[in-house]
């Protein structure tokens, strides 16, 4: 795992696409985007504060050419929920792993389904199975489970 320090990048000439994306993100959102790292060629990870996820995604789509939202996954840890966005760029052949964290008692993030239409059902699925609430989602309903189910089965406190 090769960690790239963004601030110390000496020159913009010769930098690879991974570094370019990380630098652009860090420059646009110096407060909220952190821990940029290049995991392997073509795969970049960054952490983003949940308050800024909508604006980051807007910049990613409009300015940095990330036209495809691959996957939204929610992971439950002992102290937090992680919402992991995998966003792909077809032109620069990159996959960006954006990790956003919410506290256990308030699993809320902004919906990005107005940016990528493909996020619509994936957010509904995360809501259905993990109980993450996506604000300003057009239709946040259960999708895989019946509408009258009271639990979120992928949470660790749900036992069969």
């Amino acid at each position, binding site marked *: 795992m090769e960690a790239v320090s963004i601030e110390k990048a000496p020159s913009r000439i010769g930098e690879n696409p991974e570094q370019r994306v990380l630098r652009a993100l860090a420059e646009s959102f110096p407060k909220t985007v952190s821990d940029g790292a290049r995991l392997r060629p073509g795969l970049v990870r960054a952490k983003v504060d949940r308050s800024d996820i909508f604006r980051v995604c807007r910049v990613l789509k409009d300015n940095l050419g990330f036209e495809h939202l691959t996957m939204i996954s929610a992971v439950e840890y002992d102290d937090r929920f992680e919402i992991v966005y995998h966003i792909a760029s077809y032109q620069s052949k990159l*996959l960006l792993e954006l990790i956003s964290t919410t506290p256990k008692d308030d699993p809320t993030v902004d919906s990005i389904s107005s940016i990528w239409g493909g996020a619509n059902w994936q957010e509904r*699925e995360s809501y259905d199975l993990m109980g993450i609430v996506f604000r300003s989602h057009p239709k946040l309903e259960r999708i895989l489970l019946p509408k009258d189910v009271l639990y979120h089965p992928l949470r660790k406190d749900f036992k069969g």
Partner: protein
Amino acid sequence: MAEMWINMGPQHPMTHGLWNLRVKVDGETIVDAEPEVGYLHRGIEKICEGLTYPQIIPITDRLCYGSSLTWSHLYCQSVEDLMGVEVPERAEYIRVMAIEMQRIASHLMWLAAYAGDLGMSVGFTYTMRDREVFVDLLQALTGSRLTYNYPRIGGVAHDLPPNFDRDSIRAVDYMEGRLKEYEDLFEGSKIFMMRNVGIGLLRKEDALNLGVTGPSLRASGVSYDLRKDMPYSVYPEMDFEVATLDDGDCYARYRVRMDEMWESCKIVRQALQKMPKGRWRMVSPRNAPAGTGLGRVEDPRGEAVMYVVGDGSDKPYRLKIRSPIFVTVSAAPKILVGYKLADVVAIMGGLDMCIGENDR
């Protein structure tokens, strides 16, 4: 006639599985559509949290009845990424060869279902008959016919059986002859072309925005194939083309899949030719380290991703599966509106639905 909602599903000849497409029709024209999924939700992600890493491989086979090998390969790939296991080169070649055979079989099954949807019985039986050739080959390789349980973490379960090279080359030669026949059979039929050309238009921007992947995306004019653009396994060694068309209609989706079968035949041949001698399986560790692993492959239906979170034990902490069809179906209303009721069959058939992976 006034507008009315029609339930096409859950039990309906069009659905190929268990899902429901509610369409609102004005006479025969569709004005609105709403897919409902979840009838086959088995909670595979939750099941996997209770099983050890090798035990999950047969579960991932059950994700898609059409191309189960791709999914177990994807799972092994993502766990290898998590564990940092190096796969022997021979195993990679065997996997690629088997996956491409699976892709041909899957596309043939799609073609059969599609022909059956359009009412073309001869297309159904001929393609299912020739799918059998590849199912038999995979049976010789893996021992099963539908859910193969063949890849392992760190390689594959067995080496090639005797004379497998010869049989595969024969099968591929046979298949290339057959593909020509299918092109004559389908494209030579005026009615088939009437039912396909210009139907189910999906523009490039919509396809990108709605997250459509795989052959449907490539038929809309985006040349993006994970095998070529973000190569995994030994795909960089292979010489093949990415099939792309700009039309974005049902015919383009059909054509892209036909071209992919041609390319898959080429890849099978090359993989057999370039396959080195050596080991085909490494011993993998029992426990995975804490961290994440990501696998991303080109399924016959689109982009399939698995995201594994390990916590140091021998069971995954979380396994997230991205099903290509799940996202593609959400784009269905966009494609359907404005066409006739009979086109629902052509359009949804052209997207290649597989409910097992859709509902997980």
